[in-house]
């Protein structure tokens, strides 16, 4: 038996269909009678719509219909915001599928054409005449928050969507007694998630049954069904959402978007299946972006470099509307993580969520946590300069000591377990930090500029206890569920509510079942993504699928195990308390030869010829797992860069990541998650940034202008780990999907600033392009 136990790097079962072109993503699906939709989007960041003339478009070849807000506004409910953060004076602007009188960002939907094929639909979009009166636009969230700024929504003065505050300890006293105060103004530039698969929907309304099916590129089909039911009025039992193969998300496929409901509306009107797939340009304009903070930060400390307090104000650009989960990102997922892995006695943060004439933001890999980690790590490097203590040493002085079962931090959270010093030591030793500092000094004398960046992080993930979700205004639960079904032959189907899209849980979840109950890993099939045949779940984001869904699965398998023990006792005429389990066999304690395999039990339970009194037939269990706490993975990363004095080019020479996500189910997959996460964070530090001009035009509107990392500009990443169990998780595991991104932006940024130290540079705006670095060296 090839039991793929917990901890083995087995190959992914997802891969054969993906590497042979057999997998079906949404845009690959075809239904009989299917027609195609194309959306006309606003070319203006802010404008009044004077007139929309669809006559020419409607007469174009192949066109079935053209619809605008006038058609949908009394049929579809507005797009809901589902994270209503409390005590923040939250003001939610109406978010219709189509702009009616005013367009509020470049990419705002104005009309849709449905035609027999996608070329005809696109042709006809070009024939829609819209007269606009341009209005002044504002993109910078801090500038949008002052009196006199262009007002984006009526009755929302200063464009302020919310003001949220987190406080802990006496921050004013901390600053009053500080020996040293360091400050910075940081721009967390807007990023474009750029999942390689553009978003797509195939909507199929069947009038005869009153049923609507949406195949959609979503990270959370059950949430989309719930929200979709509210938007369309189709009852939840008649609305089926299917996430087929999904080509990456990184947060950008969490939200419910106007596009899928425009497609649904078209299908309901026309009685034909309607497919809408965005182009990459549309994706850049109208699929959510991430980050976009202006941060003013200050840290108070003692003269020997011990943190006393942290105080900051953040203007978080929300874009023109509040996307599904957007308000929770710069607040709950950001502000509560302000103290990171360090002992910070006092904090205060004021977060201002601001409407701007830009694409709505949402969670983007890390979602709030990279923005917190970055502030803290910048302040520590500044503090290191101010008190003349080495950056690694200053971290050692402030890191929390190890803890195994809970540690309350100043923002009110209780971290589950951590051993931060260990991770830092491991990273420093691996990269030979001391030797690097010596090299750096030597090279500087030769006019070469090496920089070393060090970062510790801890993240909050495995979202999360539903009671906490409710308390912080999330309009849903955050538990997960699993059904485990043994068939008569001992083969297993697992149905989960979460919806992985590249993270490999079809494999790792089979490993969980295999190691819990001894079935061959290849005898377990994991099914997800279809709301008609999977149990409810809240989706795949926030590094929660294994942390929460994996726990639901383990709990369900353990129920099966309990039933199997009762059945074994019945079969072997022993007392249930005398039955033990090891390596796939249930046996009478002390007499291992008297045993049954799980396959024996599965057959026995399913034929049900003779069951104990009162026991139901079948071998199946379901579990709803609501975590008692979040999980808190952590780690330490170190980067080495060299900056070219002549060109400003940053050469990323080495990168070491030490991450601790608890016991690893499949280390190969964990490593892959770290690679991808680290590179996405490096992208923010060095290359990526959504750029808008003064008029609100998106200048980085395609992959020609927006630089996601390419293979030839990256070094090999050394991936190491430590293992600290979560005390409250049934498997001890934490999450790993976002870890890399949370650490790497600050790590690389700090390395570049370190390299530029001889030039007196201590602040540069990301991304650190050669031009910016070169100019800084000339100052």
């Amino acid at each position, binding site marked *: 038996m090839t039991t793929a136990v917990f901890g083995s790097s087995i190959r992914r079962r997802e891969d054969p269909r993906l590497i*042979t072109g057999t997998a079906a993503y949404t845009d690959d699906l075809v239904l009989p009678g299917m027609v195609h939709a194309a959306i006309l989007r606003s070319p203006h960041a802010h404008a009044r719509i004077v007139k929309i003339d669809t006559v020419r478009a409607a007469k174009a070849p192949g066109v079935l219909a053209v619809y605008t807000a006038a058609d949908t506004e009394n049929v579809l409910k507005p797009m809901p915001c589902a994270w209503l953060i409390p005590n923040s004076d939250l003001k939610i602007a109406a978010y219709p599928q189509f702009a009616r009188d005013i367009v509020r960002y470049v990419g705002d939907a104005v009309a849709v054409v449905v035609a027999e094929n996608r070329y005809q639909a696109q042709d006809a979009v070009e024939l829609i005449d819209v007269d606009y009166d341009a209005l002044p636009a504002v993109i910078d969230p801090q500038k949008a928050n002052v009196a006199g700024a262009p007002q984006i929504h009526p009755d929302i003065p200063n464009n302020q969507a919310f003001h949220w505050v987190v406080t802990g300890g006496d921050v004013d006293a901390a600053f009053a007694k500080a020996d040293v105060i360091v400050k910075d103004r940081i721009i967390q530039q807007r990023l474009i998630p750029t999942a390689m*698969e553009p978003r797509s929907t195939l909507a199929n309304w069947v009038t005869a049954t009153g049923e609507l099916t949406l195949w959609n590129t979503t990270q959370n089909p059950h949430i989309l069904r719930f929200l979709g039911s509210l938007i369309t009025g189709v009852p939840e039992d008649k609305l089926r959402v299917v996430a087929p193969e999904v080509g990456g998300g990184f947060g950008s496929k969490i939200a419910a978007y106007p596009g899928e409901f425009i497609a649904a509306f078209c299908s309901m009107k026309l009685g034909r299946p309607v497919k809408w797939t965005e182009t990459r340009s549309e994706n850049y304009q109208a699929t959510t972006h991430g980050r976009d903070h202006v941060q003013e930060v200050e840290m108070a400390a003692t003269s020997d470099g011990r943190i006393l307090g942290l105080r900051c104000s953040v203007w978080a650009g929300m874009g023109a509307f509040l996307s599904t989960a957007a308000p929770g990102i710069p607040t709950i997922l950001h502000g509560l993580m302000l103290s990171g892995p360090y002992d910070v006695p006092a904090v205060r943060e004021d977060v201002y969520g601001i409407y701007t004439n830009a694409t709505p933001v949402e969670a983007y890999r890390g979602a709030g946590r990279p923005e917190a980690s970055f502030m803290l790590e910048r302040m520590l490097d500044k503090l290191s300069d101010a008190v003349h203590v080495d950056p690694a040493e200053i971290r050692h002085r402030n890191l929390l000591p190890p803890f195994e079962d809970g540690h309350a931090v100043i923002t009110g959270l209780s971290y589950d377990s951590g051993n931060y010093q260990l991770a830092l030591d491991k990273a420093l030793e691996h990269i030979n930090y001391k030797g690097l500092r010596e090299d750096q000094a030597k090279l500087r004398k030769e006019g070469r500029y090496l920089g070393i960046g060090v970062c510790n992080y801890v993240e909050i993930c495995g979202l999360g206890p539903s009671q906490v979700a409710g308390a912080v205004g999330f309009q849903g639960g955050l538990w997960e569920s699993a059904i485990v079904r043994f068939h008569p032959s001992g083969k297993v189907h697992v149905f989960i509510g979460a919806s992985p899209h590249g993270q490999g849980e079809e494999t790792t979840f089979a490993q969980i079942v295999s190691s819990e109950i001894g079935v061959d890993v290849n005898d377990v099939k994991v099914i997800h993504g279809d709301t008609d045949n999977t149990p409810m779940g809240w989706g795949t984001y926030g590094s929660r699928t294994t942390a929460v869904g994996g726990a639901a699965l383990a709990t369900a398998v353990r129920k099966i195990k309990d039933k199997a023990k009762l059945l074994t006792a019945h079969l072997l005429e022993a007392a249930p308390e005398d039955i033990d389990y090891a390596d796939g066999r249930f046996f009478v304690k002390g007499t291992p030869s008297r045993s049954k395999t799980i396959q024996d039990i599965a057959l026995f339970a399913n034929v049900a010829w003779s069951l104990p009194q009162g026991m139901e037939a079948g071998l199946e269990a379901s579990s709803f797992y609501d975590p008692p706490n979040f999980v808190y993975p952590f780690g330490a990363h170190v980067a080495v860069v060299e900056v070219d004095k002549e060109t400003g080019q940053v050469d990323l020479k080495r990168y070491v990541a030490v991450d601790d996500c608890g016991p690893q189910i499949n280390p190969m997959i964990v490593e892959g998650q770290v690679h991808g996460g680290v590179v996405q964070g490096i992208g923010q530090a060095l290359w990526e940034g959504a750029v808008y001009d003064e008029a609100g035009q998106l200048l980085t509107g395609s992959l020609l202008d927006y630089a996601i990392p390419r*293979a030839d500009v990256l070094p090999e990443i050394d991936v190491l780990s430590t293992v600290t169990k979560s005390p409250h998780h049934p498997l001890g595991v934490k999450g790993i999907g976002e870890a890399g991104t949370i650490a790497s932006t600050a790590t690389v940024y700090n390395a570049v600033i370190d390299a530029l130290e001889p030039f007196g540079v201590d602040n540069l705006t990301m991304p650190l392009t050669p031009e910016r670095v070169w100019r800084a060296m000339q100052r």
Partner: protein
Amino acid sequence: MHMPVAITINGRVFQRDVEPRLLLVHFLRDIANLTGTKVGCDTSQCGSCTVLVDGLATKSCTRLAAQADGSSITTIEGLAQGAALHRVQEAFWTNHGLQCGFCSPGMILTAVAMLKDTPHPSAEAVRHGLEGNLCRCTGYQNIVKSICDAASVGGRA
């Protein structure tokens, strides 16, 4: 106006009258129903649509179907021989060279062409060879490892 084209895809000839503007990638996906070839952008940057046209790695969104008239094309569906995976496919599987899989068809075909030209590339050469293919999941590390591994195995180009 339509024009006749005959394109051999994975050994099978497809004869159709097509619009002159029809992109090869849409011919593959919508006419030949070979949806393994992906569309990831509209500016020829991402490489998800890469196929082999007469043996050369080609972004099928940069070609018109009409330009491919008379060509012989290999798509991801035509790479394995029955159940036997091509060594590059096998190496991607073994080395976790993919996550969401959307860029993988293009990556794999680019790698196949790369190894035909350069049977034993250095890791650095592989990275340069992947300049035209974007991946957002893997950070490329395991893609590079996969291609180097496939090179070390040798065998069918």
